[in-house]
């Protein structure tokens, strides 16, 4: 009977995992379901929808509305089908006279306290209350008008029970008049999101939904605007403002969020070419029906009035922009690029690919450099975040990627979270981790700042190691020291999966007293006993997992830290089984993909070195040109070479390097020294202030392609509307390449993916047909793993034996001193994304209108800084001003900020220090001084002035 069930249909209660099958009869139809399944779900499996109001398969059954009653042979009364588990041989009747009677009565009661303005209600046609009234055959309401929650006033005056709408959230409205108090919203906020922002206040007739305290609105409460409550609300009580404005959608396009590395699947609910709402897909394998405020609501930037849709050029960056045709812009760009090569050599130009664009687009941009420019000058902004992950994990395990899928967190007994803040930067994964923590899993957080995960409501054991920025390697090595000295390692695993002698050598290295917690204590400012406790907990957990973020990679020892993490996992045998592993949490949506697609100057797609003759031969054959065997320039090298006058031209797709890269002054000087800078983006940005050609880009809603998330999952992106700029981004790259003499003729991204699969062993099995069929797959996907690989290194490491690399702590050159006594570290917050170009252009700005500097009370007091003061933040590289927030979340001696807003320009103060192996910039440690200020820094003033000038566009009529 399963065939006609639509996958998205609400089955009433969640699926249950069990090996035991139970057989029963529902309305004469026999079904078999896993033990523990509810009668309601079993009926749904048989194709029968039992009426329900408080139940939904997003949430555990609650059993409060009594609409779902059924008759079960041998059971007394009418049990609620949502809370009654199936039993072998059960005989269920979902419709009898008695059942029908009870349901009508229940509905009548609900409807008597509900306004009957269905025709003009925003949920009209999409309201479960309406549907249920129909389903139970309600034809009349016999109650006299009386006490209710919906009438503003009655004959005697204002209704004391009436509450006005709460419209404080920019994206959804709460209209208490329509609430049936099913408490789905409260449970979604707890079970799915893990925020506990909502409660049911009062009892019986007096009960109502409330966001926190009586005085709180949704905006002032703890609500993080994830939308889970809106999604489960059966009525129009919680509803998207876009639905109120536009109406109900008429078709759905399945796609993938373009914000973070979780890679949530979404159903774009459309009316014509207009998005009505974005709803997280229940069958999305990364998000299972959940989302965060960014993907769920912050898509309005695609139609923002500042979006540029026409190509523009200018002779000099001091001139105003001139709107031109695509032909003129592309000719201008191609001519200047070729001119630069004629004057300064083949290696004088290059590209920067985007970790926001699709795999197919990235592949084409690196192909442009290698096959058309004839050099390997291609790099990606992933350089500035996760390049050490690639290097570190390839060296130790053999693959440049995380080991597990997100689902694996459900099996973990302890999560070690290092330099990551999942509830802000990877919110949907953060929610899933919180769920696991509520189920009792332990948490160890290694972070200079007290992250929100540590404040998870109803969690079990947790430890916070508030280490000093820059001491990751010292602390991780000390953890390993404890594991070895106390013999807590997994000898059997090490002997079979790694090289035992190599481990012994590492053990000897670790046992040196300089790696003992007591020696590391002063340096890292973490009590030795805490380090010991954490090491024991990690080693003792049957299944311990490691999740890490930019707080690991963005250091001068970023690559060493990644290897120290890999060592910990190997020596405790936490690899290859569910609930364990080493999992990088990637920043932008397609960081993984842009690395996979050969964006790096020394690696072809699939991480194969450019000097490898076999790989080169594959591409020479596929592309029909001779290819350079020499590594090209990394982004920081490009800037150095530009300042030396040798690097003259850059094609930069979908990235804002001026804002995202360290040492802003160095970057802008380098860009200003080039002859041709081409920026392809949705908006004029900080980088385009230094550009000669602006090529308008397309948003993720306007193109086909794929993104690869942090768990190596390749997800489809689908075109929901026509590109406002006329072309999808890959088409623009193709036009430029062809202007420069290439003869590319791709007609659809599926053809680009076919070329990727043909030339890259780990992608050999990937095709659009497969993705359409499976929804998504995780690479490696090839002959050995035709449907992809959720967990890697199960029976052995990709490189053969796992490798223990020695992890000596080497202090960063960035030291505090008399002039710069504090350490600045940087991070992100939930509502804004990266440089903020998109999120700043949405309602999300109500949560984070500016970047804030967090400072410890004692440091603030010493400097005469009060909460909310404007302060000057200075380093050896430069200075800026921003507002201070005094908090004990940061330790004394440490300050913290985000970098979402261009006026702050936090990267004016970051330095050009970088990871020894990959040149990933050291964003997480800068020596700074903080002092009271009374206005923007000189740099900010100058910058704003320049920026205003650089963004002038000549009126088209004046041409």
């Amino acid at each position, binding site marked *: 009977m399963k065939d006609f069930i639509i996958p998205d249909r609400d089955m009433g209660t969640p699926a249950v995992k069990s090996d035991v099958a139970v057989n029963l009869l529902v309305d004469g139809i026999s079904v078999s379901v896993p033990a523990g399944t509810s009668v309601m779900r079993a009926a749904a499996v048989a194709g029968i929808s039992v009426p329900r109001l408080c139940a939904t398969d997003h949430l555990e059954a609650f059993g409060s509305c009594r609409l779902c009653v059924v008759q079960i042979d041998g059971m007394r009364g009418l049990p609620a089908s949502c809370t009654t588990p199936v039993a072998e041989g059960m005989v269920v009747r979902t419709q009898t006279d008695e059942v029908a009677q009870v349901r009508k009565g229940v509905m009548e009661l609900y409807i008597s306290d509900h306004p009957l303005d269905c025709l003009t209600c925003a949920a009209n046609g999409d309201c479960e209350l309406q549907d249920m009234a129909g389903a139970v055959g309600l034809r009349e309401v016999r109650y006299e008008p009386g006490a209710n929650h919906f009438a503003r006033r009655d004959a005697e005056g204002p209704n004391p029970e009436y509450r006005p709408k709460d419209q404080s959230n920019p994206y959804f409205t709460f209209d208490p008049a329509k609430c049936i108090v099913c408490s789905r919203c409260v449970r979604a906020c707890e079970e799915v999101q893990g925020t506990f922002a909502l409660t049911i206040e009062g009892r019986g007739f007096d009960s109502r939904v409330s966001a926190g305290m009586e005085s709180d609105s949704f905006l002032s409460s703890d609500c993080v605007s994830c939308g889970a409550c809106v999604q489960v609300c059966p009525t129009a009580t919680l509803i998207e403002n876009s639905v109120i404005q536009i109406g109900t959608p008429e078709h759905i396009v399945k796609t993938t969020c373009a914000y973070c590395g979780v890679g949530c699947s979404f159903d774009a609910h459309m009316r014509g070419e207009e998005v009505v709402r974005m709803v997280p897909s229940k069958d999305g394998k990364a998000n299972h029906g959940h989302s965060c405020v960014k993907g769920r609501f912050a898509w309005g930037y695609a139609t923002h009035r500042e979006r540029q849709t026409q190509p523009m050029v200018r002779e000099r960056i001091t001139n105003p922009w001139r709107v031109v045709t695509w032909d003129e812009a592309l000719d201008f760009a191609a001519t200047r690029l070729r001119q630069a090569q004629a004057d300064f050599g083949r290696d004088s130009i290059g590209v920067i690919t985007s970790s926001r664009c699709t795999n197919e687009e990235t592949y084409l941009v690196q192909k442009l450099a290698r096959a058309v420019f004839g050099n390997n000058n291609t790099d990606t902004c992933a350089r500035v975040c996760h390049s050490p992950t690639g290097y570190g994990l390839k060296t130790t395990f053999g693959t440049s990627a995380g080991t597990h899928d997100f689902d694996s967190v459900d099996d973990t007994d302890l999560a070690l979270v290092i330099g990551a803040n999942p509830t802000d930067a990877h919110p949907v994964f953060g929610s899933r981790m919180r769920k696991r923590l509520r189920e009792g899993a332990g948490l160890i957080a290694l972070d200079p700042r007290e992250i929100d995960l540590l404040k998870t409501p109803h969690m079990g054991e947790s430890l916070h190691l508030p280490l000093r920025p820059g001491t990751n390697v010292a602390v991780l090595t000390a953890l390993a020291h404890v594991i070895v000295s106390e013999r807590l390692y997994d000898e059997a695993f090490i002997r079979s999966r790694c090289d035992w002698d190599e481990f012994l050598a590492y053990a000897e290295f670790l046992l040196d007293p300089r790696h003992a917690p007591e020696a590391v204590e002063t340096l890292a400012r973490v009590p030795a006993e805490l380090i010991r406790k954490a090491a024991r907990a990690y080693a003792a957990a049957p299944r311990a997992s490691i999740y890490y973020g930019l707080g690991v990679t963005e250091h*001068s020892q970023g690559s060493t830290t990644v290897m120290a993490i890999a060592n910990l996992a190997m020596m405790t045998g936490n690899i290859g089984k569910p609930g364990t592993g080493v999992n990088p949490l990637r920043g932008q949506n397609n960081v993984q993909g842009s690395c996979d697609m050969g964006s790096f100057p020394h690696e072809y797609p699939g991480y194969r070195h450019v*000097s490898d003759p076999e790989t080169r031969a594959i591409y020479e054959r596929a592309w029909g040109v001779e290819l350079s065997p020499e*590594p090209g320039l990394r982004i920081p090298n490009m800037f*150095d070479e530009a300042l030396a006058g040798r690097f003259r031209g850059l094609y930069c797709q979908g990235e804002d390097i001026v804002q995202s890269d360290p040492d802003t002054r160095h970057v802008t000087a380098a860009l200003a020294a080039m002859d041709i800078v081409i920026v392809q983006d949705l908006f004029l940005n900080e980088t385009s202030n230094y550009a000669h050609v602006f090529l308008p880009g397309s948003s993720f809603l306007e193109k086909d392609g794929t993104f690869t998330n942090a768990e190596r999952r390749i997800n489809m992106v689908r075109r929901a509307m026509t590109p406002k700029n006329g072309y999808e981004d890959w088409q623009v790259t193709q036009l430029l390449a062809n202007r420069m003499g290439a003869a590319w003729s791709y007609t659809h991204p599926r053809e680009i993916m076919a070329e990727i699969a043909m030339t890259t062993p780990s992608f050999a099995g990937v095709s659009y047909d497969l993705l359409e069929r499976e929804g998504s797959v995780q690479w490696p996907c090839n002959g050995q793993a035709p449907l992809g690989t959720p967990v890697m290194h199960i029976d052995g490491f990709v490189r053969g034996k796992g490798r223990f690399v020695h992890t*000596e702590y080497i202090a960063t050159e960035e030291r505090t001193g008399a002039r710069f006594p504090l350490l600045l570290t940087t991070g992100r917050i939930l509502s804004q994304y990266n440089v903020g170009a998109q999120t700043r252009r949405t309602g999300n700005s109500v949560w984070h209108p500016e970047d804030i500097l967090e400072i410890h009370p004692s440091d603030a007091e010493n400097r005469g800084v009060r909460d909310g003061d404007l302060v000057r933040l200075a380093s050896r590289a430069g200075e800026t001003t921003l507002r201070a927030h005094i908090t004990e979340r940061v330790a004394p001696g440490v300050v913290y900020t985000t970098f979402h807003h261009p006026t702050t320009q936090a990267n004016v103060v970051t330095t050009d220090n970088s990871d*020894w192996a990959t040149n990933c910039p050291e964003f997480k440690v800068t020596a700074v001084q903080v002092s009271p200020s009374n206005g923007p820094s000189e740099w900010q003033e100058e910058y704003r002035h320049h920026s205003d000038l650089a963004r002038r566009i000549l009126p088209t009529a004046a041409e």
Partner: protein
Amino acid sequence: MSDDSKLIRMASQMAQFFASQPDRPAAEAVAAHINDSWTPRMRQAFVDQIRAGVQADPVVRDAAGFVRLPAG
């Protein structure tokens, strides 16, 4: 700041890491990493500086001998 002194600094960072590894001579490892990740021009400039006698860690100096130079 745009000059090639950064190259020496980057090589020294690599030297510090590889000096702590047991498996092979640090100078060779540094050179291998440089060969893998630097352009021919950067490699040439690095070797030129070492040859010109610039101040550097002994490992960095020795590494220069193993750095692959562009032909010609």
